[in-house]
């Protein structure tokens, strides 16, 4: 870990001796955005039906849970932690909503209760990681099983499908005069919120600092534990919100809702340029990556390719993108070597 942290630090600091245009344009995030634009243009001109407005509606409806959960996940992963329990939390929140509505409680109250469950679940993760001091990978593999188990245990194999029509219609509704689903409003609000939080507040700087070096962050006065705890709580609440949306969108609350969603979210976050070691990543890269996966999926579906090919593409994109980044870094290092005898000494020299 220490070796990785040092290289991450070196990379960030070394960036500043490049000209501005290179720093802005030749980034991992920009590569993903360019790829997204390319995929959209090529699909729109070659795939029949991709250019139709309805495609956008379904594309956004399908990836809305991923987009939503990817926001807090980005921050969690920039601190060097991970939350594998989000997919199970979507299922649990869905089941809690369904079970309460079935028990005669108004939908609005049930949805609030589900968000509360998300808060408690996130706080549980946060407590184990920050107070007890356990590795988040292990903790959230445990809560992945626990939350899913609670969801399946509460409803068994039953499904609740009776929800107020007003809400199920709203989940699938489009904004007046456009083809953009209504769910994009809460997403955009959260997006702006998380961008401000991560990129424009001391809290956000602390998030990066923790990912680069936990000890240095603590000595600089960042509340490491408190920050991580808040992030896990946010992750739980947003996952629970995505669960309520998921329930309404498909009109069904089941224990196995959104199984495996955590891996799709993490794939999008990593593809979007967030380092698994922490300290690196931007929200717009992650959003572009989620849209990229979604666009590829819907283009392929329109071409009648089985939906499972998307798995290969997601996986291959993920592997190729990280290996390419690592290869470019190696190339840069070997090219620089004649001019600078030791790249390791760069931070102190500049």
């Amino acid at each position, binding site marked *: 870990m220490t070796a990785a942290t040092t290289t991450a630090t070196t990379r960030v600091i070394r960036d500043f001796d490049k000209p501005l245009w290179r720093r802005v344009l030749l980034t991992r995030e920009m590569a993903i955005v360019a790829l997204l634009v390319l995929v959209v243009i090529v699909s729109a001109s070659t795939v029949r039906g991709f250019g139709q407005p309805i495609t956008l509606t379904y594309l956004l409806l399908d990836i809305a849970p991923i987009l939503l959960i990817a926001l807090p996940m980005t921050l969690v992963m920039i601190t060097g932690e991970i939350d594998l329990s989000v997919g199970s939390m979507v299922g649990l929140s869905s089941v809690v909503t369904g079970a309460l509505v079935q028990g005669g409680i108004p939908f609005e109250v049930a949805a609030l209760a589900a968000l509360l469950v998300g808060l408690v679940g996130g706080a549980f993760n946060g407590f184990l990681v920050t107070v007890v001091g356990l590795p988040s990978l292990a903790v959230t593999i445990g809560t992945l099983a*626990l939350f899913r188990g609670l969801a*399946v*245990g509460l409803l068994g194999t039953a499904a609740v499908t009776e929800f107020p029509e007003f809400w199920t219609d709203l989940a699938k509704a489009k904004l007046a005069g456009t083809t953009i689903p209504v769910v994009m409003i809460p997403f955009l609000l959260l997006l702006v919120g998380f961008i401000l939080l991560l990129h424009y507040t001391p809290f956000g700087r602390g998030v990066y600092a923790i990912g680069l070096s936990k000890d240095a962050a603590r000595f600089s006065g960042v509340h490491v534990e408190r920050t991580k705890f808040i992030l896990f709580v946010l992750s739980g609440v947003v996952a629970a919100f995505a669960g309520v949306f998921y329930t309404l969108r498909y009109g069904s609350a089941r224990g196995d809702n959104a199984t495996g969603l955590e*891996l799709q979210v993490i794939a999008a976050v990593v593809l979007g340029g967030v380092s698994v070691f922490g300290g690196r990543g931007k929200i717009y890269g992650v959003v572009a990556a989620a849209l990229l996966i979604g666009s590829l999926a819907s283009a392929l579906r329109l071409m009648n390719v089985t939906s499972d090919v998307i798995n290969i*593409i997601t996986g291959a994109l993920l592997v190729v993108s*990280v290996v390419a980044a690592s290869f470019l870094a190696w190339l840069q290092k070997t090219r620089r070597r004649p001019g600078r005898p030791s790249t390791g000494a760069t931070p102190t020299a500049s």
Partner: protein
Amino acid sequence: MTTAIPVSSMTKRLSALGRAREFGILLALALVIIAATTNNSNFLFSPDGWRDLLLTPSILVLVAVGQAIVLITRNVDLSVGSVMGLTAYLTGRLFIDVPGIPIVIVVVAAVVFGALLGLINGALVAFAKVPAMVITLGTLYAYRGINVLWTGSDRVNASDMPKDFLALGTGQLVGIPILTIVALIVLAGAAWYMKNTRGGREYYAIGSDPAAAELYGLRVTRRVLTAFVVSGALAGLAGVFYAARYGTINSQAGAGWELDAVGAAVIGGVAITGGIGSVWGAAIGAVLLLTINRALPILGIPDFWQRAVVGLLIIGAIVLDRVLAVRQKRRLIEARDKS
């Protein structure tokens, strides 16, 4: 200075056994079996109960042993479930496409294929210096996708495979299922290697501190690569077993097993941060995980709650490890201050 009290080596060994992390998990396993057996004596004392007790965990034991070795080097292999699926389908495909193919060749082919898939993981992790979690998450998708492309909506049924092969899945030798015997041999071999050989100890050294291991001159790249190849090969073997045991293989065979394997290793005391734990622990963890699954309905808990219990078990195990580690650290500091 402490005065030396003569202690027989037997007592010493016994007390070491009592303190070992694996002993606690073994105790938990014994409790589960005793509780289930008192509720329904068929759980242990019937030919079927005895067989299921040994047979059910065998496949997961293999995957968990491979996972433990990878975890000990401070990496993780999330692709094992997908590797299992691919090798299980390969097994079925070979029996269908090459009539009369010897079983040994099929087993070897599946293991080699699994090892190759593991080699891809290992090469990407070791040479590209990319975190194993990202690489194996990618190959989890990619391998499963290839499996779906290859299989489509096709399915291999028991009737497509020779009777002798299926007999492997349920057959017994002196009262012990054949799969269990194979799993035990693999386990004993891996445990001996990890504990007693220079190579095995190097895995621990790498996991404890990769940078120090590199400086010390250990061949980190080669060891990490080997760990992934072993994990892939064992997942390949598990795939063959899966085909023999269940008889039907569709494109989703082995899906989700990666989390069970990591869970089993963590329950058995293998630290996800590397360098700590044993393959024995991981194997006992795998047995405990699946035995609890079968014991719950007998204890009157609807089996819908299985996953919740598994989750509590994983969290309980890592909290316990943390408490033990903190206590040991305090004891070491006290010992240092006294001297």
